[in-house]
């Protein structure tokens, strides 16, 4: 008898719980449908603009992917949510800018750096990437290694580090956004799209190379095998004679290196900005939650979705609500989590 009563109560609860859930999904689907409809209408009325915005979104997605791939690599392997990842991005830009400034001896009355040569772009890029990678390893070895499995502590430690970095950045770099100078023409003519930023295309190309490179490393090399095995069961990996600490350090090196690379590219395409740390941390978080924590494919898909949403909402939203475009990002987040709680390509931990 008792079980009969229980199941009735459970049934009632079920119905009551389902009603708002259904309303929520209808609401989300309506937003999704309206957005696609809106984009479709706009695309039909001005195909050139649409092509331009789409390509813009894809190049933005490239930048997002480079940042998020490092983030997801570190999380997937070590379960460390590195809240300083955005700071790595920002510092990457700052270091490259400072190195480049020294190399180019800019006119002190001008705000912008003179045009860079290949050397004066590549040297700052490499210096910055390696510095950030080393910084990542130092942070991992000094602060995180002793707190393995303590997710809250690791999150708090990395938040503290990111706050310190942010303050130091304002103190020594200033609050004005600056642009890293590049050795290429500003824009080139493309079919259909028209004039388009060269560095944006370079950024997309680099992102594709990074994606393919990471995929090859993960799927073909012994390091990749160990990383995948470590994502599954890192204790067992060490019981097979693998020094997992070294693998962790290598993953942190690679993840931070990628954040540094993205920081330099972002600083060349847009600007080096003191508020980029929080922005790119948030972007990375959204991407890996949408794509699935620890999944490289997920990071790529999440980055494309986010890049396109950013790009379309900037242009296509009515003027009155353009500033609320960022909300669409969170609709995406809610929608994905409602349908697939572990993200599009994620698995239960």
């Amino acid at each position, binding site marked *: 008898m008792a079980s009969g009563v229980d199941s009735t109560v459970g049934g009632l609860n079920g119905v009551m719980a389902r009603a708002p859930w259904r309303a929520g999904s209808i609401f989300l689907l309506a937003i999704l449908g309206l957005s696609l409809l809106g984009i479709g209408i706009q695309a039909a009325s001005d195909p050139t603009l649409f092509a331009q915005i789409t390509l813009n979104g894809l190049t933005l997605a490239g930048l997002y992917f480079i940042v998020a791939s490092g983030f997801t690599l570190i999380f997937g392997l070590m379960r460390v949510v590195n809240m300083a990842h955005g700071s790595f991005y920002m510092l990457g830009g700052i270091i490259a800018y400072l190195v480049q400034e020294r190399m180019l001896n800019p006119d002190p009355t001008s705000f912008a750096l003179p045009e860079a040569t290949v050397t004066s772009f590549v040297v700052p890029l490499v210096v910055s990437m390696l510095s950030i990678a080393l910084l990542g390893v130092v942070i991992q070895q000094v602060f995180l290694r002793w707190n393995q499995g303590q997710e809250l502590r690791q999150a708090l430690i990395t938040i503290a580090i990111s706050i310190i970095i942010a303050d130091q950045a304002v103190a020594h770099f200033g609050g004005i956004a600056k642009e890293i100078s590049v050795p290429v023409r500003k824009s080139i003519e493309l079919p259909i799209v028209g004039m388009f930023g060269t560095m944006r295309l370079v950024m997309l190309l680099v992102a594709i190379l990074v994606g393919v490179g990471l995929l090859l490393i993960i799927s073909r090399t012994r390091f990749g*095998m*160990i990383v995948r*095995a470590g994502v*599954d*069961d890192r*204790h067992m990996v*060490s019981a*097979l004679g693998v020094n997992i600490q070294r693998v962790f350090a290598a993953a942190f090196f690679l993840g931070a290196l990628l954040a540094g690379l993205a920081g330099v590219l972002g600083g060349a395409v847009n600007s080096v900005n003191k508020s980029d740390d929080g922005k790119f941390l948030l972007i990375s978080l959204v991407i890996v939650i949408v794509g699935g924590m620890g999944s490289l494919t997920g990071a790529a898909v999440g980055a494309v979705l986010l890049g396109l949403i950013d790009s379309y909402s900037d242009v296509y939203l009515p003027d009155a609500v353009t500033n609320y475009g960022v909300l669409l990002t969170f609709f995406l987040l809610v929608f994905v989590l409602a349908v697939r709680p572990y993200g599009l390509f994620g698995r239960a931990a």
Partner: protein
Amino acid sequence: MSEAPILSLQNVDARYGAAHVVQDVSFDVWADPVCVIGRNGMGKTSLCRAIMNLDPPAASGTILLDGVPISGLPPHAIARAGIGYVPQGRRLFPSLSVDEHLRMVKTARVGRWSPAAVYDLFPRLSERKKVSATQLSGGEQQMLAIGRALLLQPRLLLMDEPSEGLAPRIVEELIETLKGFVSEGVGVLLIEQNLGVATSVAERLVVMVAGTVFTETTASEVVNSPELQQRFLGVTPQESASEHA
């Protein structure tokens, strides 16, 4: 010639927080296989983890491998020193194929085991090289778990409940395989609840009760004594018979 035992446990203790799961365990493993038997929750798996220093209960005491202390070393160093660990539940990697499981294990120790030698030993695995470990049958999974441990060129195989969940015919194959290692001079420390497997692999049995070594006995003694079986494992002879039937 042989002075030191392959593995020597001296006063090994392990705790999970306040729970004292392994208490003052001491015994040696020589060339002949040893099997630790005992009911569920008697600290057998914790003993394995203490030996490997793996997701460890805080462990203390001395563990020697070929006379060299290994206690306190990180797990990878213990594995490289020559202990091939085959854990309970196999703990294969779902993201890796069969072949990748064998290619990821490397050691500086020299020995006769290579991926090719493992495929020779377990031909069924070589037919399934590209298959994900999750798609293997229970018996094949166990072969792979043993195979990857062999690639460490182990001095000792530490096996935790290898017969768990396997069909009786597969268990018999497993027993034959294990006997083969013994003849090659690889030490075997087996943890088992299946008395049939325990007694056919090892003559020497260590009985664990409540985290301590309750007594040592021999296979011949236990096999013929339903009373001992009842005492050590809590199985009546009928149950025990049906378990490995």
